[in-house]
């Protein structure tokens, strides 16, 4: 009998303690602050600081914070300071969704800067669409998306490939081997590549997808040797890039005859693989750290001063940086009107900013960005030599390969034939 009461009391006590520990939210008052009260503008920063994609997302976090600091140092926006609320979604889409909810619903940020992988963007999209908030997405991606709650500052396939593929065919040949990581970005880029190749009379001699994080490429390299392509069109990401390059060279393949042409290899990966393994391969991107412009020199110097002199900038951290400035311009334009995400979105249309890569502009038709694709050849010192640069900025066409569809400010529309 005593057992019953004691057990019960102990159980209740433990439960209470456990609850209190586990749910600090219960006893920490969740002060709901207005979005832009008293000289503060709250923005969310949602990049993984732990986990597999932390490798690159930490640089995005750093670029974003640096931009915010710059803006605040100049007095903020219309006298109001930007307050970044940083969350770590730990490279897990479910956690991304959770943190996005916190930033949008809990902290009431007016905008959130975030995401590297498409999976994480897709996971947070419902939150932004439901609460009509605004997500600024800086990463190159596969296109075919047209959300009214996202501003896309990364490159889409037409911007990355329209110059690149013809150049490759002209300089190296028509046989392509497509290798990518196993998810939608590489598959969609390869779709576009195949369309371009067909127009040019090219041929796909192999197409393969390896698991994310895969690092054993001996079988793949064997297939390269077998099929003898002119170009290896690579969309592997992360660790796989480093492993592939190293094993390629170690196996004795020659980049002068069978170069790897990538959309995802950046200064970051080259630093990790060692310059000698990257020499002779190509990347297409709107930005390279070696680009010679006053804005870029300023950007790289500031980044190094702030985060460490061995740091590199790359084509994902640069958009993460300039998108904050575009945000600033949009908010500044709104003046003393109330700051709501839809207003910010509309104010951001046609905003232009002299980014490190060149003048960029947000396209009002689809909320994507006009960019300056470049073709770079990797050098031994870890930087890219820019071989070709477009003469004028390239319009973003997220549905370029799908003529029946077009992205409009009100969302996706199907064109009548």
């Amino acid at each position: 009998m005593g057992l019953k009461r004691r057990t019960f009391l102990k159980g209740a006590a433990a439960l209470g303690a456990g609850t209190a520990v586990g749910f600090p939210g219960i006893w920490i008052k969740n002060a709901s602050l207005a979005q832009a009260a008293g000289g503060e503008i709250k923005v969310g920063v949602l990049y993984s600081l732990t986990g597999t994609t932390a490798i690159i997302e930490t640089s995005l976090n750093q670029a974003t914070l640096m931009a915010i600091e710059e803006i605040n140092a100049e007095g903020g926006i219309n006298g109001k300071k930007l307050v970044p609320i940083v969350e770590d979604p730990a490279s897990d889409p479910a956690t991304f969704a959770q943190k996005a909810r916190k930033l949008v619903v809990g902290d009431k940020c007016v905008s959130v800067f975030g995401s590297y992988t498409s999976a994480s963007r897709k996971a947070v999209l419902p939150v932004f669409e439901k609460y009509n908030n605004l997500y600024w997405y800086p990463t190159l991606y596969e296109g075919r998306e047209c959300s009214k709650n996202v501003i896309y500052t990364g490159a889409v396939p037409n911007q990355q490939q329209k110059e690149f593929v013809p150049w490759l065919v002209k300089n190296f040949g028509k046989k392509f081997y497509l290798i990518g990581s196993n998810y939608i970005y590489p598959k969609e880029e390869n779709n576009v590549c195949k369309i371009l190749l067909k127009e040019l009379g090219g041929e796909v001699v192999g197409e393969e997808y390896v698991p994310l994080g895969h690092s054993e490429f001996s079988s793949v390299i064997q297939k390269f040797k077998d099929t003898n392509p002119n170009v290896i069109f690579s969309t592997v990401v992360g660790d796989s890039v480093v492993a592939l390059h190293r094993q390629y060279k170690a196996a004795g393949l020659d980049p002068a005859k069978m170069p790897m042409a990538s959309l995802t290899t950046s200064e970051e990966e080259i630093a990790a693989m060692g310059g000698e393994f990257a020499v002779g391969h190509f990347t297409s991107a709107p930005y390279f750290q070696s680009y010679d412009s006053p804005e870029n020199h300023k950007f790289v110097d500031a980044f190094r001063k702030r985060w460490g002199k061995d740091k590199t900038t790359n084509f994902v951290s640069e958009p993460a940086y300039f998108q904050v400035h575009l945000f600033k311009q949009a908010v500044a334009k709104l003046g003393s009107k109330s700051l709501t995400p839809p207003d910010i979105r509309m104010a951001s249309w046609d905003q232009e900013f002299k980014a490190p890569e060149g003048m960029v502009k947000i396209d009002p038709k689809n909320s994507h960005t006009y960019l300056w694709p470049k073709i770079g050849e990797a050098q031994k010192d870890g930087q890219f030599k820019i071989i070709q640069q477009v003469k004028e900025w390239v319009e973003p066409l997220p549905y370029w390969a799908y003529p029946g569809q077009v992205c409009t400010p009100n969302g996706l529309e199907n064109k009548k034939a």
Partner: protein
Amino acid sequence: MRTSVMNARIIGYAAFCLIILAVPLFIDDGYLLNKLSRYLVFGILSMALSISWGYTGILNLGQAVSFGLGSYCMAMALKLRTIPIQTGANGLPDFMVWNNVKSMPWLWEPFHSYAFAICAGVAVPVVLAFLLGSFIFRARVTGVYVAIITLAMLVVINLLIIDQQRLTGGFNGITDLTTLALFGVEFDAYSPATYYLVALSLTAALFLGLALISSKTGLIMQAIRDDETRVRYFGYDVASYQNFAFCVSAGIAGFAGMLYTLVMEFASPTFLGVPISLSIVIWCAVGGRASLVGSALGAIVVTGVQGSLSETPAFLDTWLLIMGALFIAVVLFIPKGLVSVLDFRLFRRGRRRETPSARPAPGAAAPETGRHASAALPKKFRAG
């Protein structure tokens, strides 16, 4: 004696459930309710593992398979009812259109019906568990080897789901889902309705589990956990009981998966990943694997602490370190879990010993799995 133990348990469980159910009376912030719902779903998941691990001795490292499959079933049903706002055409989900799929795959057809989806969410994991279980338990594979096999199956299924992008959305998962509306109630992820659904499910699962482990079947399951060979000598078909526990565990996990889709508003292959599967084991162990409410509590406390720590700016860098240290501390000093701190007397009364902790000699690790009949012999000579 057993009756008073039982009554104590029932009262304890009821108190726990009442507290859980009463929460929305004090909290009306949708975001918080959603967070709590997520923790409760993990509680159900952890409790399911406890049935197979704590009570039957089967360490299912692939529990996430059942969880993930359940969540995908629900996601598929919801997806088919989403008004396509991205690119869907011909009633095809948007991701299929991106993958240039021309017509609805036959696998998706039956999910137009909610009834089918809900049944499938439980049935598919159970069937899979049954098949796998029949395969391994008949061969008297137990202990660590079951763990390895379930882990391997997890990796395989994860790879397959990510690979079959045209069917499953690949690495992105199935996102952009409509809200479930059943029996006139809308289960929006932030609404009290969803919270109550999850809380009620947890309550139901707990009492179902309690009924199970208090029954004769439950006794036999626990006997199998303690000494499989001895139960076999008594004439019971051990493999069937193991398979039963395995399947029940899978079914509950599948149901938890369906609830998770409602709470998170998407389904992702990360739900079937190795990290989350290992996490389930951790929650179960921290809370007390041999206690249903303990393991549920373990999940809620651990994920709760994790959620709070990772959201506190001061711990942004170190929350993982703290979690790791906490686990180590719990494993070393409170091996039976948090619940054991409460009522160790209850535990000691009910069981004589658990096989793993009774062994002082690490060298005997291999045969302790009970594979060789000769392993039964030394036990007679070991001090009880």
